[in-house]
């Protein structure tokens, strides 16, 4: 024999949440379309871990906190921006504000409060990290890399690289190449 089933997602979701939350034995309320759960008191660390583990089985994930989440989205958007061919048309501030739908002032403050650096400095660090990757893993020349990453000139790229890392791009590459020889000698 065969039976057919149908789900009401809202009921399923709430039933799972209620079932798991009841196990904790604390007062709670489910709010905001089941996106937020409020507890009358702070959960112990064990309870929180146990809850996270039991919800995970149903594909429900606890987001650490909203700020951490948004900081992560800012970082991801910056990463995507460096690889986006159209991104040079925008300023970083406009790009982030458009993609994330928050004012840049808000994003910028939130980022600085949570990461010990500014968005501007993080973009530079990330950009230099990308340059390092292109230098070591591709045959692109510095001129090509400068063009690809929208530096106004090779001098500008080299200057920023030196300022951030304390090394010239060629000194950096030399070290990475020599490291490979050391590593292979140690094997």
């Amino acid at each position, binding site marked *: 024999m065969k039976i057919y089933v149908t789900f009401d997602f809202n009921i399923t979701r709430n039933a799972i949440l209620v079932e798991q939350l009841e196990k904790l034995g604390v007062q709670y309320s489910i709010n905001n379309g089941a996106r937020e759960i409020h507890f009358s008191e702070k959960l112990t660390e064990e309870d929180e871990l146990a809850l996270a583990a039991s919800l995970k089985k149903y594909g429900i994930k606890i987001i*650490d906190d909203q700020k*951490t989440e948004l900081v992560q989205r800012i*970082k991801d958007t910056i*990463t995507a921006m460096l690889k986006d061919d159209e991104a040079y048309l925008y300023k970083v501030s406009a790009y982030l504000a458009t993609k994330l739908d928050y004012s840049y002032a808000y994003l910028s403050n939130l980022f600085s409060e949570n*990461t*010990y*650096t500014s968005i501007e400095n*993080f973009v530079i*660090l*990330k950009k230099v*990290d990308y340059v*390092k*990757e292109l230098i*070591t893993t591709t045959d692109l020349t510095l001129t090509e890399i400068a063009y690809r990453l929208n530096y106004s000139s090779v001098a500008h790229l080299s200057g920023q690289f030196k300022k*951030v*890392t*304390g*090394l010239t791009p060629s000194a*950096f590459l030399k*070290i*990475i190449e*020599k*490291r490979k020889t*050391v590593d292979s000698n*140690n094997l």
Partner: protein
Amino acid sequence: MTINNLNVLLADDDEDDRWLFEQALSDIKIKSNLSLYKNGKELMDYLKNMTRKPHLIFLDLNMPVKNGMECLKEIRQDDNLKDIPIAIYSTSSSEKDIENTFINGANIYINKPNNFAALKKVVEKVLQLNWQYQTSNLNKENFLFRI
């Protein structure tokens, strides 16, 4: 990813330098727990039995018993330890020394500053950088800075 306190280790045989470093570290915004070692052997003995993996090790080069270069090589050849970021913290400004530490796996090379304000600035910069490498999607293979 969040980290509350960075676990920082310093191996330096000079007592004054250890004290100054401790003051500098406690003065900056990034919170950390610091453990101090008088030479490379003390550091390596700790690392072999560690219970909590450090987020960053500062290594002086010229130390008695076991020097910084020996520690660096041992750490990079140990599967449990090889991914710990290492900042060399030395008075040597010989290009040869600097290049050698990088080739053997150092992530940061710091010339010991000669005044406290500069030291504080340098330590803060290194911790900031390390924090970014611990919490962001940056390529750790290319974690290489001279400060």
